[in-house]
């Protein structure tokens, strides 16, 4: 029970949050954060627990987004129905892909996911009659307020984490980790490794596709370079996992929170600190610096990732005991 205490407190805080803080900007940030928890967790199931690193999770995110978008755009089907379809289409893309590429070991599988990402992006660009190509798809948002979106993604996030927890603590989880640790040993213990890798991939991509479909609904606009983005989605998913802790339940949540926080910290020019200095001193240098900082949010997160890898190779959640003892020792000595 004590183990669930922090997540429960956090969940209640998230439920209350938009009722207290009514500014749409902060609600928007938390919505993005929760969406990233879904993406990060599903990436983590495949990469962290099953040991098959995906460098192309945008492929599944984009498939989900386009499934919802195209159904609404061409057939006028409510994008909320499209959401289920989004998850299913992402899984439908993942299935043949996994079936073919799980024969590849180590980095080769990662490269194949990278290729899938780029192939789908180009396909979405070229197939103009269907996808409008680079023009993208625009649909009318269902709600004008952010609140309904907020609670939808909150439910989705909670379901994702529950799904991950159930999976990881069952036979499936044990099988996934054994495949990560040693595939040959797993096979010799009666595990059909191909089958369980497929299950891991399908569960993960379903949630990623669902997140993609949510993104379509929420933003109302997608184009290939946004939802199949290599740096903003595929790589970000990897980094969220690494920062938070690969192979831990709450690692992706922590990683997602830090990513969104760092990005906004930079985007706002250290919360307007540089602008403040610029106004105070009247020096143009600070204003210019502020502009640089604003466009350096990816760089900032990149630096953080490097620091985490150097100091906490298992991520923040994975090395939590290490962090605690370090902090504790500091208290004793001072």
């Amino acid at each position, binding site marked *: 029970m004590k183990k669930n205490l922090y997540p429960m407190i956090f969940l209640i805080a998230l439920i209350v949050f938009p009722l207290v803080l009514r500014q749409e900007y902060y609600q928007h940030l938390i919505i993005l954060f929760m969406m990233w928890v879904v993406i990060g967790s599903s990436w983590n199931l495949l990469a962290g627990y099953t040991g098959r690193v995906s460098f192309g999770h945008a492929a599944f995110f984009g498939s989900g987004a386009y499934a919802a978008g195209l159904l609404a755009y061409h057939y006028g089907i409510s994008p909320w129905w499209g959401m289920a379809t989004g998850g299913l289409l992402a899984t439908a893309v993942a299935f043949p892909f996994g079936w073919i590429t799980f024969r590849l070991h180590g980095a080769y599988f990662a490269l194949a996911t990278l290729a899938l990402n780029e192939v789908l992006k180009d396909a979405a660009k070229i197939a103009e009659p269907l996808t409008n190509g680079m023009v993208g798809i625009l649909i009318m948002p269902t709600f004008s307020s952010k609140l309904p979106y907020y609670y939808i993604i909150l439910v989705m996030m909670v379901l994702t984490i529950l799904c991950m927890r159930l999976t990881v603590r069952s036979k499936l989880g044990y099988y996934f980790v054994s495949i990560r640790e040693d595939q040959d040993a*797993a096979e010799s213990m009666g595990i059909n490794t191909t089958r369980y890798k497929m299950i891991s991939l399908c569960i993960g991509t379903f949630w990623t596709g669902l997140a993609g479909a949510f993104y379509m609904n929420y933003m109302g606009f997608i184009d290939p370079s946004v939802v199949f983005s290599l740096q903003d989605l595929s790589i970000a998913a990897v980094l969220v996992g690494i920062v938070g802790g690969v192979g831990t339940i709450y690692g992706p949540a922590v990683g997602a929170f830090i990513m969104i926080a760092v990005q906004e910290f930079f985007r706002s020019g250290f919360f307007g600190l540089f602008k403040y200095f610029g106004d105070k001193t009247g020096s143009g240098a600070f204003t210019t610096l502020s502009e640089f900082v604003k466009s350096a949010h990816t760089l900032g997160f990149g630096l953080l990732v490097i620091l985490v890898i150097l100091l906490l190779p298992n991520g923040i959640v994975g090395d939590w005991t290490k962090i605690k003892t370090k902090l504790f020792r500091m208290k004793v000595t001072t």
Partner: protein
Amino acid sequence: MSFFRAENLVKYFGGLAAVNNVSFEVHQGEIFGLIGPNGSGKTTTFNLISRYHRLTSGRVIFKGQEIQHLPTYKICRLGIGRTFQVVKPLRRMSVLDNVIVAAFARVNTMREARELALQTIEFCGLLPVQNLLAKSLPIAWRKRLEIARAMATRPSLLLLDETSAGLNPTELLQAIDLIKKIRDNGTTIIIIEHIMHVIMSISDRIHAINFGQTIAEGTPQEVAQNNAVIEAYLGTDYA
């Protein structure tokens, strides 16, 4: 119907015949030794039985069923457990979790798997280290973990690949006791071993191979006195 039979096993790696026409039969309840100098094809034979490698030709028959075309995991589920010469612990899992993974081959719920794993761990004498991470174990415990994992899949035939290599004399005696205990519990064993007094003392029958070919088969005494075996191990001067 014989319990286990390997018929004319042949395995080529490129142009090299690693195993060339090896046949043997194992009776239920016995310890069957497989010996030969380094590189003679013992481990390859195990890999052929558990289909870690595919046979070039030949048949493997277990309880009346041809199994040479089945995938590795199905062979395990049919009741052939194996250990690896170069141990393969699931490094970042505890000893108990390692064995639980194996136990899931026979049971489906977490509770049953845990129970079966704990029984197996106790049987193999791993209780003192059950909560340690597998990567932190010294080699003697790792070898024991290999056996425990194989045993948790409840095999009726167990393939032991050099489970005594690298052990000190005390550990060696414990390992021999464990192997005998497994046999007494009704599991048939095929064992590869380099330490001659181990294999001579526990095997009921021994099959000797060299350069992938059978050179002798019989009781430990017969094999020990066989000229081809002495020649293979000590050179022509001693034969």
